[in-house]
């Protein structure tokens, strides 16, 4: 197993199959993974655990991804938290206000392999260090 375990990733995803696939792949790549199955849980986890990266879905129960993002940006830590939107809802980039909300990447899940996602995250880590 690789050693990326200093890097904490929060996965906010309600679909149990997709959730399981992402978490399994990230853990195999050696990351420390935190899980949330709804938006509210995700926001709470983010604000209490300060992950290095948040993978955020848009359509989520309890609190949708947009509201999570808006609330996150109101928090002094969350203001600069690193967020990748990982959704299957495309064509909504304008509504999400990617630049205004400083979303680093907007990825369509079905267009991305998990291996490519891991590569992208590793590039991000290098960029930060």
């Amino acid at each position, binding site marked *: 197993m690789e050693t990326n375990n200093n890097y904490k990733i929060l996965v906010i995803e309600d679909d149990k199959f*997709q959730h399981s696939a992402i978490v*399994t*792949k990230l853990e195999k790549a050696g990351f420390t993974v935190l899980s949330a199955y709804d938006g509210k849980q995700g926001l709470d986890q983010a604000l209490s655990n300060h992950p290095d990266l948040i993978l955020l879905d848009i359509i989520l129960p309890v609190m949708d991804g947009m509201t999570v993002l808006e609330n996150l940006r109101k928090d002094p830590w969350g203001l600069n938290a690193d967020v990748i939107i990982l959704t299957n809802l*495309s*064509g909504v980039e304008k*509504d999400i206000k990617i630049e205004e909300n400083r979303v680093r990447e907007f990825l369509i899940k079905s267009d991305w*392999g*998990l291996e490519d996602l891991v590569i992208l995250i590793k590039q991000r880590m290098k960029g930060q260090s």
Partner: protein
Amino acid sequence: MMTFSFSDEYKKLLQVTIDNLPFAARILKAETGEIVMINKLGTELLGNPFVKTDVFPQTIILLRNDGTIYPQNELPAFLALKTNAKVIKDDIYINKADNSKNLYQVTAVPIKNSQNQAEFIFEIFEDIKHIKEVDRTKTDFISLASHQLRTPLSALRWFSEMLLAGDAGELNKEQKDFVQNISDSTNRMIELVNSLLNVSRVESGRLIIDPKPTNLRDLIGNIIAEQKIKAGEKKIELVFSIDQTLPEINIDPKLIGEVYTNLLSNAVKYTQEGGSVKIIVSEDQKNIISQISDTGIGIPQENQAKIFQKFFRGDNAIKLAPDGNGLGLHLTKAIVESSGGEIWFNSVSGKGTSFYFSLPKEGSQSRAGDVTLN
């Protein structure tokens, strides 16, 4: 000056006619703007100008979306008078008596006398809130349906990818083949969903067109680089010719990139081993013309008239590549046309095909829209 004159019978005939129109309508005197006739729906919406009352406002105020007053010199009646031609605007709001705000399409038509001078303005107000809502619902439905389809597809893609990568232990040859089949079928389904979504967006007329000064040489160069592996596998020679002095053109690079990608990937897909594919960009007085030619299987004469139809595929194309979905050329044509250009082709079955499309040198018109391509 010749003027209209009406007998009482004609006035009555006209009043009954406009009273039965399905939208608010009124006739104004061109010279003074005075209302000379209004129908029942008009009175409900705009107030009756002939009855002094506190209930209806004598003059209604037309608003913009942001609630500010629509400037008088931009109103359809004013412009119709100024240009002596019909003017339509679909962004006018009116506060109704119950304080709700509704969106209207307002049309103003000058009614001219024999000297071609406008004597009256016929003005109609159509409530288009419902039409806009139906449009949006249709697109929202497609977005949501695609989202629902993509959810299980992503899980299928990811789990088969992990199995193939050996994340759950090494697979034997047969297991690997089976999982590869699942993975290939899943990816084909994902492509179909993406294409359907794109087609529905282009057809909705809500696609954002965001033209930027673009260097076609770089744009096409990147797309060729993406196709090089596939072309290399089939030993297909790729030739690119573009005038070095061609100036930048104001187009939406994402949309036009999709056009080059579709035409080039088709050319590579439908050309047999050892063939060649050429991209030639030239210009005439008004347009930049792109030509994508291949030495492939061609489009049979009897299929040519239908080649841009949604879901249509040539008989020989189905045999050579059964996995296409017949949406690529339909989408390509829709993008070219919404960018101000035209697309055409010539093809000889068994010899090859040349697609051509033009883009106006002055660039594409931008459109605010609210959706992007996938």
